[in-house]
């Protein structure tokens, strides 16, 4: 009987969390009149914190993943004399899958955890309450700029990740392993489709950005305002974002490239 009770309580807790998260999102996006004059500088600042400061980890990871892809791909392709296909292999793998997914995972670890910790700490130190008491809506003032910054920056980061990855593939494949420079680029150009490959990658990335940023903001806003609560919330952000990204990636891939 206890087990059933626990299950019921657990389920109810989950559903109420989903409800609170939705409330947060709606409040941040639609609550009150948007004020562009005041909101835009806040958005730009968050764009810097969330996007620009994530650049290093994204670019370095992208470079190395592209290089490893080229190295691994080359050893397989050379057996069939198909090393000219290295270009499309690296670029398609990056644009369709690795760019959006790895960027989202890195984003959750780098920017998502920081967002959760920041907002959780603002809650613990009563900064959110004091905003409310000053008649300033924390959802609009604190949550909304961070949300938009996340949604805008992640697709851009993913595109940069893929671009740098392709360069990494070029360095290893062409400069080091001796694949023909011309065929590397021309076959790549011929086989990558703007709409099917690049845009689908961007759409994936947008979906991941939405989910990751939402989870990070909600976990921070909903954190128990103690040091332990904030550490749990930060961990939850990384774990839940990562799982959500991997799960959604499968669904999106099946929808986009399924047949």
């Amino acid at each position, binding site marked *: 009987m206890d087990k059933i009770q626990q299950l019921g309580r657990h389920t109810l807790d989950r559903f109420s969390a989903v409800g609170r998260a939705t409330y947060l999102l709606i409040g941040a996006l639609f*609550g009150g009149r948007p004020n562009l004059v*005041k909101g835009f500088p806040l958005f730009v600042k968050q764009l810097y914190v969330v996007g620009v400061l994530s650049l290093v980890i994204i670019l370095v990871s992208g470079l190395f993943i592209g290089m490893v892809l080229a190295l691994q791909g080359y050893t397989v392709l050379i057996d069939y004399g198909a090393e000219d296909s290295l270009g499309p292999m690296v670029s398609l793998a990056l644009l369709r899958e690795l760019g959006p997914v790895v960027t989202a995972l890195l984003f959750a670890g780098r920017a998502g955890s920081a967002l959760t910790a920041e907002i959780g700490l603002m809650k613990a130190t*009563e900064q959110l*309450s004091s905003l409310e008491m*000053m008649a300033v809506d924390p959802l609009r003032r604190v949550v909304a700029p961070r949300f938009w910054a996340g949604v805008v920056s992640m697709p851009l980061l993913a595109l940069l990740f893929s671009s740098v990855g392709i360069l990494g593939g070029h360095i290893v494949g062409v400069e080091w392993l001796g694949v023909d420079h011309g065929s590397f680029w021309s076959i790549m150009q011929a086989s990558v489709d703007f709409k099917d490959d690049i845009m689908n990658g961007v759409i994936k990335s947008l979906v991941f950005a939405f989910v990751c940023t939402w989870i990070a903001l909600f976990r921070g806003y909903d954190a128990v305002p103690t040091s332990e609560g904030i550490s749990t919330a930060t961990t939850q952000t990384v774990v839940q974002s990562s799982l959500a990204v991997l799960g959604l990636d499968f669904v999106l891939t099946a929808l986009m490239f399924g047949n």
Partner: protein
Amino acid sequence: MTFQSQNNAVQNENGLTPHVELKNVTFSRGDRIIYDDISMSFPKGKVTAIMGPSGIGKTTLLRLIGGQLYPDSGEILVAGNNIPSLNRAQLYKVREKMSMLFQSGALFTEMSVFDNVAFPIREHTKLPEDIIRTMALLKLESVGLRGARDLMPNELSGGMARRAALARAIALDPELIMYDEPFVGQDPISMGVLVRLIRDLNHSLNLTSIVVSHDVHEVMSIADYMYIIADKRVIGHGTKEQLLQSESPLVQQFLKGQADGPVPFHFAADSLQQDLMQG
């Protein structure tokens, strides 16, 4: 002399216009009742204190008045507006006229002291920057921190942080200010400074002040009227003289700081002997 005459004024409390009123408010968290049918009145332009042992939800009371929490039943009137029945926009409108000094100060850590004080002015007015600067500097001057304007909150001592927060709280000249445990964790000097500031602000701006505290001595020195809360209800209220003469053992226990009395020292438990034998 002024103090005496104010006390007299409060004694016929019915003659004063209440700024904030609680009528039959009941509030509970989960199954635990925090307030059971309490009523209070905070007259306009006076310092009213709420005292009581720690952990009985004095801060909760301020959050109820500020509309951050909703009571289960009862009315909370602030300047005639029933807080629980307001919609979000109306509530924010009422909040523009009230202010709260949080226990931790709650300064925004990413802004300098000056920007913290200027924040509410920038949010709620469209004044040009040079007027905002003058206003913020004047508020900082009144708490003695004009020289600290460029410091960041983490560079301030506890007492300074609370004073800076006070400057921010009065930045827009509110009509009502609520102090949440303003004296906790302060050294005697900054405590004295805060007591004087609260008193002076009340005089010069004609603020309605609500002070939540359990520092009996400090509160008695500034409050015109006092409520003592314990065990989910108001156990005593009146001016300093009235409370000191009160015959209620609860009130006496609290004012004199006796360890045991109607409010037990021990948290509810089985008898010690029983507990030890069980091991």
